[in-house]
């Protein structure tokens, strides 16, 4: 009886420490971009171009878990928590600072360009500013249901309460820098001549506002893609705004498409 108890106890303790070890080893490390200023970044896979995953407002890199494990099979892929998102300190940064931080973090993590940038929601705007600042480092882009500056202006006119004002900083700390980010986007130069896929999530939603604005949202994506030399517009009817979680297979497929195109170029 006593020996059996001790055996079970020893086994359970071993399992607990094995789990602790696995958990601690899997926690994304933090990359220092400047003294006292670090970003969480998870890197998987190998190959070039490297894929960089940028989440929308308030999200964390864990939202990319399904996409990242799929992309790691054919490319090196880095998901990170932006400075200003929930898990970092400063909150009133704009897209240019975000881009500089990311560029620095990628260099510190020894992830060499070119990059395929994948941005979800507002992360797409950060990606566009990054691409405009470092055009030579970009191999392609996949923008997942990312807002358009024209659409944001349209919202400010037609639905001002649900526009930028609805992003309260107590819920989305980095929302403090949104207006300045949009100004930077509008003042910026053109995007590099690389493959860009714009995905519109047109899946059913319980939110009446989303259903109402969906035609405008889709049309503006369509218009924007027309001015991109290597742009392609994909509409998915099986997913809402969180495409990376709802349809990870589609996202992996589109990233693979851009990576293959960059290999051919």
């Amino acid at each position, binding site marked *: 009886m006593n020996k059996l*108890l001790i055996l079970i106890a020893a086994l359970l303790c071993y399992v607990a420490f094995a789990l*602790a070890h696995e958990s*601690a080893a899997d*926690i994304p490390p933090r990359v220092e971009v400047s003294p006292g200023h670090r970003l969480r970044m998870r890197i998987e896979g190998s190959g070039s171009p490297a894929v960089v995953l940028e989440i929308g407002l308030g999200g964390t890199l864990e939202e990319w878990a399904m996409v990242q494990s799929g992309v790691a099979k054919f490319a090196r892929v880095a998901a990170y928590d932006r400075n200003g998102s929930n898990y970092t*300190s400063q909150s009133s940064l704009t897209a240019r600072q975000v881009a500089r931080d990311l560029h620095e973090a990628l260099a510190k993590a020894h992830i060499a360009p070119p990059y395929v940038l994948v941005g979800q929601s507002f992360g797409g705007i950060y990606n566009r500013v990054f691409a405009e600042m470092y055009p030579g480092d970009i191999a392609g882009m996949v923008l997942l249901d990312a807002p358009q500056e024209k659409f944001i202006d349209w919202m400010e006119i037609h639905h001002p309460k649900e526009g930028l004002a609805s992003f309260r900083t107590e819920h989305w700390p980095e929302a403090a820098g949104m207006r300045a980010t949009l100004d930077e986007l509008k003042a910026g130069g053109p995007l590099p001549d690389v493959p860009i896929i714009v995905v519109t999530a047109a899946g059913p939603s*319980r939110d009446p506002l989303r259903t109402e604005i969906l035609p405008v949202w889709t049309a503006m994506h369509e218009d924007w893609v027309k001015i991109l030399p290597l742009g392609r517009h994909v509409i998915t009817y099986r997913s*809402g705004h969180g495409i990376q979680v709802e349809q990870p297979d589609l996202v992996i497929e589109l990233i693979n498409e851009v990576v293959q195109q960059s290999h051919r170029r």
Partner: protein
Amino acid sequence: MRSSIQALVWEMWASHRRGWLLVLGVLWLCATLYRLFAALIQHSDAIQTLSFAPMIISLILVMAFCDFTDRDTRGDMAGFPRRLFVFPVRTIVLVMSPMAYALAVLTGIYCAWAILVYRPLGIDIAIGWPAAVLATGMVFYQAIIWSLSGFKLVRILVMSLAACVLVSVGCLPWVLAASRSRQSWEILLGVLLAVMSLAGCAAAVIAVEMQRRGGGRGWSRPRTVFDSIPHAIFQPRRAFKSAQQALFWLEWRRNGLILPFTVVLTLALIVGPVSRINGHGHEETLWTVQWLAILPILLAVPIGKGIAKPDFWSLDLAMSSFMATRPVSDGQIIIAKMKAAACSTLLAWIVLLAVTPLWLCLAADTRDLRSIADNFRLIYSPISQWTIPILMLFIAILLTWAFMVNSIWIGLSGRTGLFYSLTSVGMTVFIGGLILIGWCVDHPNQRGNIIVTLVPYVPWILATLFTGKIVAAASVLVTVHRARVMSGRTINTCLCVWIAVTSCLAATAWLISPQVIWLRDLLVLALILVAPLARLGASPLAIAQNRHR
């Protein structure tokens, strides 16, 4: 004493002198601490909500101290002190003096909290209307407790009903504010409260006058009828098959309904009115559902401390000779307590699960909830969509039960100092944890840094805690086996149950986060700590010590 009124007031003060000092001490302490941490309270809605807890507890304590009752010689339910019936004053003075004292103290303490504690923080809580409602509540409380002193069940029911009516009236000015200004409703309803209070005073004076004259004989028949109701419900119809069954019945009758009853009261007196005042919008609905989901767990924490003692209502931990000399083993006593706690927990959750969907269907705006359910359906596979909610409910029930029983090992040991020290530490940690969670909810900016900094250490801390738990459990079970307090078979059964439950918990964690490995392992480590083992194993040893000292 210069006058009879002075003597009565002195008696009320003297009988709970330490209690009054405690209430005043808490008031002073909170006034000081809240000023020191003013910024923290002002900028966090959750901490601000929690900051009202000491005020509510002290007001409940004041009401308890003002009941002004004595038990009669047969130990029946408490009523107006019979020894004062010979006091040479008119009944109206005898009744109104303690009532006036209680009203003055209760409203005074409330006003002190509002003015001295909350106003300096910029939290401007209403004074007049809540004080009027509290004063009426005090009159009702005393009137009911004195008038229905012989009616056990009826008194509880009338008191619950009165509390519901009063809370409803108290909420009306906010509910009806759309049709007329809140102030005008307060004036109108204030007149109603004054009439109700006068009726309560009159009822109390008449009842005490009757008791004073040796009256109330005409009540003996209804009293017998009412008293027979609980007996008819709870009295066993057949002889018990075993001592274990009898023990369970006794435990259930003594403590079984406390948690379900408290859940019902909290729903009726706090959640319902607050939800009505806040409105049933989609955000408010989500907020209310979150609170409902943790309500039995929160209530199980203090109730579990009471159930752990030999007698729930007594501060003394010594076991009575009747209890100590019963021809049952220590293990049987523990198992009866655990079974009664399990039934109590299940009943509390059944009540909650019956009320919540009803409220959601009838009154609430479930937009946010449906949106969460949609996201849940998108993220998880069809099997997980069914399994995870069921397992989460199981975890919530298990947590409630764990809080109900995890103090038995110390509560039945008879060590008063140790019990109250550990209880104080536990409650402080619990309240501190709630404050920390509240702070994290309201400070997304800062919480991120804390979480990211602490997360790498958490798996190791949890693994160490689990190892400590397992080592303690193994040594306790070996001692229990050697001392023959529990048979080897019982220990094996308990271990098998624990392993099965812990496996279920681990499976839940696995299902919740299948992709993010660090989070999945962290959840597994946290959840396997939930099912109690060492403390339950130590319980028979503790009770053996208490019985034979």
